[in-house]
């Protein structure tokens, strides 16, 4: 196997163990192990990018083969994988680097870095594997890492609950993926991602089966990428360290749902499941964007915007433009990592204050962070020449050209609203006067090397990657891309954004009093409540699971379990004791008894043989 591939496969896990073990002896070592391993992984991805962009790495390996049962575990690295690898390892490395200060005071650093490396390993496995089995393993590794990292501060109840919630929500989606794998295994005879696309292109798959499988896989993607209705976990996941939110819940893991759809794009296209993808995603984009407008916590605003932007990428895929979807995925990963890390820097500066309404005026103390965050915000808002503009424009254009009315309306609204919530966030953090007594005293100052440098790199990237937008599209999809073009759309979007921008600036900089007046109206308050609680989807899911699943189904099963199953199980103890007592008679500990049994055994064999021989 290729050295770079082997490194990518194994190094994260070795690194995780080393970081933990060495970190236990000396705490700083954990960081350095993680930093070095992160860098090596990024280098390995770069090597693949430079050396294997012309050819596809395709390694077939069968994990277990027993007759007809074969469990394959192949490696398949094409351009799509390499782009995902670069995103995962590059952002992973910067994130680890950033954590040096952000997590600097935490006594549990070895645990933190071990988990982060383990996560990166899972992500790598997902994007380079050839079969759904490997993808599922990677998928679950990430799910586990995500759970462990959300509840990193496990002694806080809210964090432990959030981790549990994330685990349950995503696991609910994963069950469907497992079912999809089983269906494919038995009916299609393959779980090979490449082969599935080929079979779809050749029309060899049963359409109904393929549709069910595609929808099941999409259910998994909904869970992982925080789409309607399985998104509430993503918001609560913000209980984890901000560096974790940046890496896992902003830039990489949440992309895996999009990746798996993109990887099986031909398969999805063949089944018409893309129609459903587009509509669910458009709805999620709308929910995310509107809910982000009213959140208080910095990280929750970013989380809802993540949901909204992932949906925008999904819409790109859903309306049939792989190029638009993947381009937005890459751009979003970069600017969202930037925004989350900037938020991390702000939280670090402000002594772990997370409520945006308690911040303010930070532009004086942290001008650089303000600048970098502004660049990320502009990219997210979709302002040219930042990279976000190009991909968002492309998705919206694709939706207008190929999508139905529902999709295009909702995705356009979501795309326009991004400037509103992100401008609001930036103004609340950086302008005006500090709304918190703590901030007037001394604040932490971000160090150049550990905080400003990664932010600067990401800000630089989100601006300058615009130059290569066409190249990225061609690299992922190939040369013959049909680019959607809708006349006048750009002008319409930019005008709309400008108007919204002016309204937000007007309200939050000059007209706070007007804002309070509007907000105190009953009707507005109701809407505010609905949006603030994410359309009460979480409450609804909780209600259903509590009253119907736990209250009715689980309770009746428990009764059956307690009074029927347990009774039988308890009786088995008596049964084994009874059998034991019979058998025990033969174990006297006397050699004579044993030899007697020995002879008995010989006699059994010989008599049996004699009977058989007689029959011969």
């Amino acid at each position, binding site marked *: 196997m290729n050295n770079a591939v082997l490194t990518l496969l194994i190094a994260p896990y070795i690194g995780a163990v080393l970081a933990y073990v060495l970190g236990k002896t000396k705490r700083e070592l954990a960081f350095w192990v993680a930093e070095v391993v992160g860098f090596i992984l990024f280098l390995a991805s770069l090597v693949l990018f430079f050396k294997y962009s012309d050819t596809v790495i395709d390694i077939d390996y069968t994990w*277990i*083969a027993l007759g007809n*049962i074969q469990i394959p575990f192949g490696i398949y690295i094409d351009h799509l994988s390499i782009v995902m690898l670069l995103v995962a390892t590059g952002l992973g490395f910067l994130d680890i680097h950033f954590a040096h200060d952000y997590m600097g005071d935490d006594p549990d650093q070895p645990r933190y870095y071990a988990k982060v490396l383990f996560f990166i390993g899972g992500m790598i496995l997902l994007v380079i594997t050839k079969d759904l089995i490997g993808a599922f393993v990677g998928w679950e590794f990430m799910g586990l890492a995500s759970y462990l990292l959300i509840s990193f501060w496990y002694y806080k109840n809210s964090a432990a609950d959030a981790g549990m919630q994330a685990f349950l929500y995503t696991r609910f989606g994963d069950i469907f993926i497992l079912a999809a794998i089983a269906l494919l295994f038995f009916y299609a005879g393959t779980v090979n991602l490449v082969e599935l696309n080929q079979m779809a292109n050749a029309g060899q798959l049963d359409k109904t089966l393929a549709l069910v499988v595609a929808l099941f896989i999409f259910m998994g993607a909904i869970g992982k990428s925080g789409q309607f209705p399985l998104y509430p976990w993503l918001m609560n996941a913000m209980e984890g360290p901000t560096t974790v939110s940046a890496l896992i819940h902003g830039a990489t893991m949440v992309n895996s749902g999009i990746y798996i759809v993109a990887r099986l794009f031909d398969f999805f296209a063949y089944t018409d499941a893309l129609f459903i993808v587009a509509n669910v995603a458009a709805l999620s984009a709308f929910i995310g964007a509107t809910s982000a407008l009213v959140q208080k916590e910095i990280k929750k605003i970013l989380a809802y915007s993540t949901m909204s932007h992932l949906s925008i990428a999904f819409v790109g895929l859903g309306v049939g433009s792989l190029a638009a979807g993947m381009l937005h995925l890459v751009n979003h990963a970069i600017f969202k990592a930037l925004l989350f890390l900037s938020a991390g820097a702000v939280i670090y500066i402000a002594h772990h204050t997370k409520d945006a309404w308690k911040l303010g005026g930070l532009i004086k103390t942290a001008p650089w962070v303000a600048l970098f965050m502004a660049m990320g915000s502009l990219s997210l808002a979709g302002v040219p020449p930042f990279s976000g503009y190009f991909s968002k424009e492309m998705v919206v254009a694709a939706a207008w050209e190929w999508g139905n009315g529902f999709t295009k309306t909702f995705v356009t609204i979501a795309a326009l609203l991004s400037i509103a919530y992100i401008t609001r966030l930036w103004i609340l953090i950086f302008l005006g006067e500090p709304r918190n007594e703590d901030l007037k005293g001394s604040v932490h100052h971000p160090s150049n090397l550990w905080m400003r440098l990664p932010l600067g790199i990401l800000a630089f990237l989100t601006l300058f990657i615009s130059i290569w937008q066409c190249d990225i599209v061609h690299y992922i999809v190939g040369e013959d891309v049909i680019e959607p073009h809708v006349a006048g759309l750009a002008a319409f979007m930019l005008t709309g954004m400008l108007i919204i921008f002016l309204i937000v600036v007007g309200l939050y900089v000059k007209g706070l009093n007007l804002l309070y007046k509007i907000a105190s109206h009953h009707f507005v308050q109701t809407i505010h409540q609905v949006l603030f609680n994410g359309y009460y989807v979480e409450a609804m899911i909780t209600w259903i699971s509590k009253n119907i699943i736990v209250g009715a189904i689980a309770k009746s099963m428990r009764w059956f379990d307690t009074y029927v199953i347990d009774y039988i199980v308890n009786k088995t103890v008596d049964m*084994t004791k009874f059998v*034991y007592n019979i058998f025990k008679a*033969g174990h006297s500990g006397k050699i004579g008894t044993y030899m007697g049994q*020995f002879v008995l055994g*010989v006699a059994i064999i010989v008599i*049996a043989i004699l009977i058989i021989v007689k029959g011969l």
Partner: protein
Amino acid sequence: MSFIILIAAGLLVPIFYRNNIVIAKIIAVLAFILAAYFVFKGESLNSIFPYFVADDATKLMEFVLLATLAAVSLALTGFERPLISQMLFLAGASLAFLETNNFFMFIVLFEVIAIISYILVANIRNFYNAEGAIKAFIAGAVASGIILLGFALFSFTTDSFIYSEMNVSGKFTLIAEAIMLAGIFYKLTVVPMHGWAADAYSQVNHAAAAILSGVIKSVVLFATFKAFYKFLIAYPLATVLIFSFFAILTMTLANFMALWQKRISKILAYSSIAHSGYALIPFAAAASVYSYAGILYYAVAYIFMQTSVFLLLNDLRRELGVKYLDDIKGLYKKAPLHSLLFTIQLFSLAGIPLLAGFLSKAVAFYAGVDAGLWIIVLIALLNSALAVGYYVWIIKHIYFDEPKNNGEVIQMSTGSMIGQLILLAGTIYFGIVAGDIMNATISF
């Protein structure tokens, strides 16, 4: 070449082990590594002696055996030192035993290994050791007699002792086979020839028990399959009947016995007997193309996990005086590393996935299904479920019970640690990668 190196080292080691155990261990490990190297080169015995051939599967088994014995010799200390030299002899004899393609040699080497095992258990320190040793010896003597009886009968009916050229037709051959098997079942501790083992494994020194129950049993299992393969194929009805019957009897009885034991070593002894029962399934399924893979996988997986648990128990008894289940309550506080390793290997014995114990059972049982022995496999599966009961019971004592008294935290010695890591690596590697064994047995 490997044979000569091992025997030479076995003669050399006694000079050192009294004064400087480190040198003895180094010599032993070097000898094991060199032997493995020559096995790899294909120059173990076949380049020097006739009647020895090594196919891929045999080589794999030999590597595993040498690695395990190296691990055991590293872990030994104190009065167990003489075992180092005995293990080198055992390794030499085992290599020959595994590689031979001659039935006469098979019988002779079987006796050689039996004798080495008597010497192993003769390391007597107290009354219990003596009792165990005597039981092993007497049962072994009777079994030897029976094997020789069968072999004598067999030698009248065949023209050649080469496995592939043996004449296996005729009623007398079948009777001869049955009598020989009865003797060999003793070494494999098949019920009802198991009585001695339940006592001996738990009474003799645990390090010797590790070798007896782990190493020697695996070796005998694999070599017997090769030697008897032609018989098994020639009489399908007798094969299926005899082996299925004894497989079911063995695993069921041993599992029920293990459930109610209080002595840990006794639980492990019965667990070892139960595993013999599972290992008979590939014999019964000899007609399947997967039977060879099944038996090799079982031998390989079993050698790692069984050896490891007994060695760990040996450490625990020496350091903490652990004997009964009550003694290991809350053990993880006193011996965290021991507890972790013990747990992993017990999980492997129970057949938890991603550990060798699971894949070995999967492959062996698959062979059974392939040969159409659904019912036996089903019973074996139920038995495995039953067995989880007592493995988890031990783990429950280790992790979930409060310790009786708070002693000091004990450390694992370096040698023991390296040895355990080798065994752990084997358990995990063969639990994840099945390709090696499947490929090695393809040509059979």
